[in-house]
């Protein structure tokens, strides 16, 4: 690895020596000093009691906010010029070394055009306690919060449309939680644990149940066009003894069928009334 310090050469000769690890920063400021920083002082003076703590690293000020008052705090900062919500990120601290306390943190990064500076607000929360949504303050928070909910399972109260955004509806699990395995999960097994054995995954005909029972969508499965869809895949399967259809526990609404589950033959056998569209 030639890019590193060559053996034997005195390091500080050519280029200014890089401070290894610890940046040569002035001694850390206390919470009160940080609150009085001109960057945040005006906003902080309005919501002083909602600030639980503060810290600073590489010139970035982080304020810890009382979770239930985050909307009020964000409004105060927005009125003070922090009109642009840069980023909203959730972190799962459950495997953080030495961490005690609530599991999740949500970090709001705000930017002020006048001051040309960012400030970070953070709240602590857990699986149960919803964080008040800041969508009334910034429209852009909408998708950020949806993503945080989708990835970490942090709920936001008052959000107009808190649903999954990157994963599909009905996905069972929160991928960025630390207990979610990196290799992923067998989604078939997790969504329909009583239907698909662990590690099995959805396969055509592996359920022994009609497709209508496997799927969370309990409505009528319409057939479009004249293609004999029922003939494909599950057509040659011998009819297995049917166990009683069980209600699926984690039903979150209408969920599309796993792609490989073919419609059961009996669903296609009876010709349906062509009620897909009204003709005249």
């Amino acid at each position, binding site marked *: *690895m030639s890019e590193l310090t060559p053996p034997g050469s005195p390091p500080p000769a050519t*280029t200014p020596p*890089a*401070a290894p*690890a610890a940046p040569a920063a002035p001694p850390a400021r206390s919470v009160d000093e940080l609150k009085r920083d001109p960057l945040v002082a005006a906003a902080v003076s309005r919501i002083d009691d909602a600030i639980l703590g503060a810290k600073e690293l590489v010139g970035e000020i982080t304020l810890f906010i009382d979770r239930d008052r985050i909307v009020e705090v964000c409004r105060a900062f927005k009125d003070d010029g922090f009109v642009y919500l840069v980023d909203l*990120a959730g*972190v799962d601290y459950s495997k953080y*070394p030495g961490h005690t306390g609530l599991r999740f943190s949500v970090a709001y990064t705000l930017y002020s055009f006048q001051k040309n500076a960012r400030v970070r607000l953070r709240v602590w929360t857990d699986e149960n306690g919803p964080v008040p949504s800041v969508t009334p303050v910034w429209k*852009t928070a909408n*998708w950020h919060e949806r993503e945080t909910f989708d990835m970490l399972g942090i709920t936001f109260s008052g959000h107009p449309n808190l649903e999954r955004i990157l994963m599909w509806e009905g996905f069972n699990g929160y991928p960025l939680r630390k207990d979610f395995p990196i290799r992923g999960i067998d989604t078939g097994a997790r969504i329909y644990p009583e239907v698909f054995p662990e590690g099995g995954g959805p396969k055509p005909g592996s359920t022994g149940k009609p497709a209508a029972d496997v799927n969370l969508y309990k409505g009528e499965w319409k057939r479009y066009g004249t293609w004999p869809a029922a003939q494909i895949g599950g057509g040659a399967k011998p009819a297995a003894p049917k166990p009683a259809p069980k209600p699926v526990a984690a039903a979150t609404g209408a969920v599309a069928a796993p792609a490989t589950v073919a419609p059961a033959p009996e669903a296609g056998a009876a010709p349906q009334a062509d009620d897909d569209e009204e003709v005249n």
Partner: protein
Amino acid sequence: MFDVHEMEVNFGPQHPSTHGVLRVLLKIDGERIIDAKPIIGYLHRGTEKLFEHMAYPQCIPHTDRMDYVASATNNLGFVETVEKLMGISKSIPRRAQLMRVMLSELQRISSHLLWLATHAIDIGAMTPFFYTFREREQILDLFEEYCGARLTLNCMRIGGMPDDLPHGWLDDLEEFCGKFDAAIDEYESLLTTNRIWKRRTVGIGVLSPEEAIEWGITGPPLRGSGVEWDLRRAQPYECYPDLEFDVPTGINGDTYDRYLVRMVEMRQSNRILKQCIPLVKQTPAGDIKAKISKVIRPPEGEVYHSIESPKGEIGYYIVSDGKTQNAYRCHVRPPSFVNLQALPAMAKGHLVSDLVALIGTIDIVLGEVDR
């Protein structure tokens, strides 16, 4: 019964003008859009999860795959964030800084060229495609000459650059820069005063500055709305303070202004490149790496850093526990994801064919939207 006026239509995910796998659920009345709902996630690969399970240098190739038409700026954002956390931002050699700037600006031009080609082709102008890809090819050749890859460059390292510039690279770049201004004139002669082009873009998808900031929009869409804000200027990184360039802004905030902003940006990038070439020649060859420890293990803490990518502000929020060689959490703030959110607000009241222009003008890359 034909009294039903509203209709729900899926636009995408398999539609050539959605630039990937964007799906927009449209509620339309005839051809007029009443409501639009972007549905994303078809290209989700769990990049942020992967970041948590590999050492910092191993993450760099994965950043390529987010905005895969602008990988150099993705690399730059990531390595700068880690450098900021390690406190070595100031010790990057000047030659490495200039190389980073050159690659970023070439990447900006190449990304804008791809945007222009696809945007024009979406709207119906076939010809610019052939012209822009002529120059884009030359840029990709320059990339290939430097690092061997054309799209996913993986061309930056924490603390510097992987390799010095190959022999003759600066001459090739100089040749390209000399010809490129005339090439932009050529594109503009095809579009800027074209009557059809103006009919399709002027007044389409108007965003006021306040609205743009409310939606968190950055990059050319924000500047097209008249906000003079560019991270290269507002919070300069690398050696941008030493370089002269202008930040173009629009007036009306419509699709045409965003087009003009990007055209001027390409000229400004070319201007930056021309300034870089003599500066690089002054620096000692081979001085491209800061002296940092072999194992990259930043101190405990959290950091947010962002740079100006061709699409807008790309930011990285890294939480480090100070004990391991990988990030405890690395969140990406992708510009495409945030900019796309304003699509419904921009599309309401327009025609379906204007939606194609709007998707083009936001300049999304689904690899970055979904990560």
